């Protein structure tokens, strides 16, 4: 089977081939149609081909929403380019719609005169009705301004797989590979990466392997033989920085960052957590790599997830817990315990739309203020945020560095678009990871005495004495600690001192993190300041404007508490500051409060990331106002 599909000539086409610098493709279908898989395979083939790319998967919260309905539509958008891009793009050039609902809910985003690839057989009465169409859009002329490539995907898939031994419902499962084959033809993508992936994935189920390969090939052949489109397209490899690249999602990069942090700290890793969308994939990935000495603990609830993490931190593991918004709320009390006991641990929050259960599968920069302030009492702690899928790796190591050096819990923020989105990542040489180890205390730290709350004069961190160490037996807990001894203390002056000390310890970290850097035009009057997943769109918008000669500068924060020491100076050197955020203005609140500047917000909470064009428009509006 495999050799026939793998050797299809990549450039064989009866039609002309046109070179594009970038293209945006969106796959849309029922959540059972396998669109995420088709999208990921197309992405990996493009990655292997050397394109720069960025992806944005979006799916309903329900695992199987009612078939054929708008609510059940699952999409995967990918932008591929021959240059350095940072976002999955605004308007798809091509929409693959596996059913009427997929067409209806995505058509508004497709660029004028774009291409629409449809499974014509799904456009039947019942599906049209479910999607809210009175007439068949394939026949009523409403799509005349688009180029339509229509294929009877079900008949052709059935035909293709009939010799392979799959039966019943399995037969039509392969139709996403038909669609993928057709797209591979249209965009001159190599089939080998997909073939290899299928061979690995289904090595134990040859009939499914063969069916998928057959459908893939049939899709390609359909394009070739019917001359489905006059023109096929190619996007050349991008000229990225030299290096070895992989295509990585934020959740995977974060899981690898957890493992890497353990190695950089020379400590075994503990990951205590409770399943929650969209953070669970970090647990899944870590569970697969126990030979790195990783202990994963799937707890009975969010509280136990972090509770066990506190226990592991006390016992000398590099301890992480992962969650999303509602889980962070549940963990709040235990985070305070970690803060009071001054134990190093890292809390990963993959943000999603809130409040309450909110929008579990949609991106929102929902929890910045909650991360910084969401604890009872005076409870400052470091908060960091990844700016892109691949940055999730480095930011996790940075969080562990701060947690260990300062003996404190640290929150790292990701969000749904970082977690499930992907981008090429220039792989680091892991032998050059920083040494972030914090040696355990092995004997008395004050003459012949051990004082649990004696502090390092520079960092104010206490020593880490773990169970099993003779002579250092001690008790810690949530009650206020007496300075130095760590005994319970109700002394009011001591409480003031300890609150001041804990605050100073965290504030001082500002001197130990990279200063914020500005990009773009240093003489611009406007600074666009961002944090987290808006990095790509802000850069994208600024680059477009700079190309047109519009002066604008940008800066992006990875450290949200404390802020980099030079942030105030940077902000004050511009006349205006614009802060685009996928929330109602959380960073804006912080910046206004901290620096007393009239920062301007650009805010959106409509379950999707910013479009580059939106941010670009807003920047122009502010500059011209």
């Amino acid at each position, binding site marked *: 089977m495999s050799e026939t599909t793998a050797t299809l000539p990549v450039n064989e086409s009866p039609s002309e081939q046109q070179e594009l610098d970038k293209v945006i493709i969106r796959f849309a279908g029922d959540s059972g149609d396998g669109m995420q898989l088709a999208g990921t395979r197309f992405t990996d083939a493009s990655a292997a081909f050397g394109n720069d790319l960025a992806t944005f998967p979006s799916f309903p919260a329900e695992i199987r929403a009612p078939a054929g309905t708008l609510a059940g539509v699952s999409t995967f958008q990918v932008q591929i380019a021959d240059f350095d891009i940072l976002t999955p793009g605004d308007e798809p050039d091509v929409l693959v719609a596996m059913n009427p609902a997929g067409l209806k809910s995505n058509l508004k985003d497709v660029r004028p005169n774009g291409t629409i690839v449809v499974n014509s057989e799904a456009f039947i009465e019942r599906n049209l009705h479910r999607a809210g169409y009175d007439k068949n859009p394939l026949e009523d002329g409403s799509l005349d301004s688009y180029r339509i490539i229509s294929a009877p995907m079900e008949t052709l898939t059935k035909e293709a797989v009939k010799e392979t031994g799959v039966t019943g419902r399995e037969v039509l499962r392969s139709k996403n590979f038909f669609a993928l084959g057709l797209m591979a033809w249209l965009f001159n993508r190599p089939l080998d990466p997909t073939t290899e992936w299928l061979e690995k994935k289904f090595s134990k189920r040859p009939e499914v392997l063969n069916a998928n390969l057959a459908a893939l090939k049939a899709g390609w052949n359909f394009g070739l033989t019917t001359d489905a489109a006059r023109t096929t397209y190619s996007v050349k490899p991008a000229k990225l920085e030299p290096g070895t690249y992989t295509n990585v999602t934020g959740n995977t990069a974060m899981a690898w960052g957890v493992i890497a942090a353990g190695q950089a700290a020379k400590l075994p890793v503990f990951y205590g957590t409770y399943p929650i969308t969209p953070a669970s994939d970090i647990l899944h990935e870590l569970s697969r790599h126990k030979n790195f000495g990783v202990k994963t603990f799937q707890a009975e609830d969010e*509280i136990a997830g972090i509770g066990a993490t*506190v226990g592991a931190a006390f016992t*000398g593991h590099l301890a992480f817990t992962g969650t999303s918004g509602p889980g962070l709320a549940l963990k709040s009390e235990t985070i305070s315990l970690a803060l009071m006991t001054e134990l190093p641990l890292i809390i990963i929050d993959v943000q999603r739309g809130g409040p309450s259960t909110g929008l579990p599968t949609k991106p929102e920069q929902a929890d910045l203020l909650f991360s910084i302030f969401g604890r009872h009492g005076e409870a400052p702690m470091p908060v960091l945020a990844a700016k892109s899928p691949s940055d999730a790796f480095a930011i996790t190591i940075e969080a562990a560095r701060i947690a260990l050096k300062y003996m404190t819990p640290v929150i790292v923020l990701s969000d749904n678009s970082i977690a499930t989105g992907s981008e090429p990542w220039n792989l680091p040489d892991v032998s050059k990871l920083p040494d972030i180890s914090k040696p355990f205390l092995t004997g008395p730290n004050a003459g012949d005495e051990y004082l649990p709350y004696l502090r390092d004069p520079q960092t104010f961190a206490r020593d880490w004495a773990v169970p099993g160490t003779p002579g250092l037996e001690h*008790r810690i807990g949530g009650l206020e600690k007496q300075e130095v001894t760590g005994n319970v203390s109700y002394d009011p002056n001591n409480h003031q001192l300890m609150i001041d000390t804990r605050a100073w310890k965290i504030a001082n970290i500002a001197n130990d993190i990279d200063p914020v850097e500005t990009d773009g035009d240093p003489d611009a009057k406007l600074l666009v300041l961002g944090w987290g997943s808006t990095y790509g769109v802000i850069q994208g918008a600024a680059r477009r404007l700079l190309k047109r000669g519009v002066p604008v500068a940008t800066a992006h924060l990875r450290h949200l508490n404390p802020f980099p020491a030079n942030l105030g100076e940077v902000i004050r050197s511009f006349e205006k500051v614009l802060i685009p955020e996928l929330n109602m203005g959380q960073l804006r609140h912080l910046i206004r409060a901290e620096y007393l500047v009239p920062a301007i917000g650009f805010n959106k909470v409509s379950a999707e990331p910013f479009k580059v064009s939106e941010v670009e428009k807003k920047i122009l509006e502010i500059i011209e106002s």
Partner: protein
Amino acid sequence: MTTLNYKRADFQSDQEVKWCPGCGDYTILASVQSYMAEMGVAREDVVFISGIGCSSRFPYYMNTYGMHSIHGRAPAIASGVITANPDLSVWVVTGDGDALSIGGNHLIHALRRNVNLKILLFNNQIYGLTKGQYSPTSEVGKTTKSTPLGSIDFPFNPVSLALGADASFVARTLDMDRKHTIEILKRAHEHEGTALIEIYQNCNVFNDKAFNALTGKEERDFNQIRMEDGEPIIFGPDREKAVVIENGVARIVDTNSVDPSQIHVHDSHQVNPSMAFALSRLSSHPDGPTPLGIFRDINRPVYDREVSRQIEAVTEKRGPGDLQKLIASQGTWTVE
């Protein structure tokens, strides 16, 4: 390693003990410290984790590693400690409010997983630290500050609850009976897996004499049902009462009203928990005859050991992880 030659004082910390005078917690502390001296585990390998409540001050008074944590969460935190280092001897000290109300979920899941924790549940049937509200083990009708008309909450039977969660070791003892307490502590330590020990503890300030039926000079001989492995369960000052189990239900009968072969012979090692459960239902409350001793003591895989075993097995099979290979494992391409 140095030979362990501890005295009780080696396990006493320098902190002043601050329970109310006359509280049952003092006796339990003394029993635990005495047992620690003879347990045969190095002091640095002993960890006490507690939640919140009067009993949860316990770790401060133990000269071992310890954490006085937050309300109800001790089993979760202790699970992290023992999973990180299965060679430690980890003890959880908790109360009826801490373990059965706010922390009920963590308790049953620790029992279900069979994490190697020794859980000492000080049951005084009242909230002491918050000054006298009814607890999840208070009897129906109890008048407290929060139930001036009498409690309408039906209480838990902690032993039945633990058996229902498939706990591998469940026992009950009395604060006053130091010898019995120490014997149970020893058996719990020797047991591999979670051990739940319910300790009836007198709160002389808010719920005095709650266990009088079992501790009062006049009453105790009539009401203490001592369970010993291999022995028929017979009790009373003149051994005039006995326990029979029929159709899964345990009953108290006059010893001479039944054939001796009908009297239940205790076996805590029975894998099937039905007999242990039947015994636990003999008393819904300690105001009459109440079983004391070990209800269940069986072997099944221990969570923290299994975690380490899986890691060892997969490392043996695949070799230690190579991070550079891992980050390249999803396919790579090279840009020159």
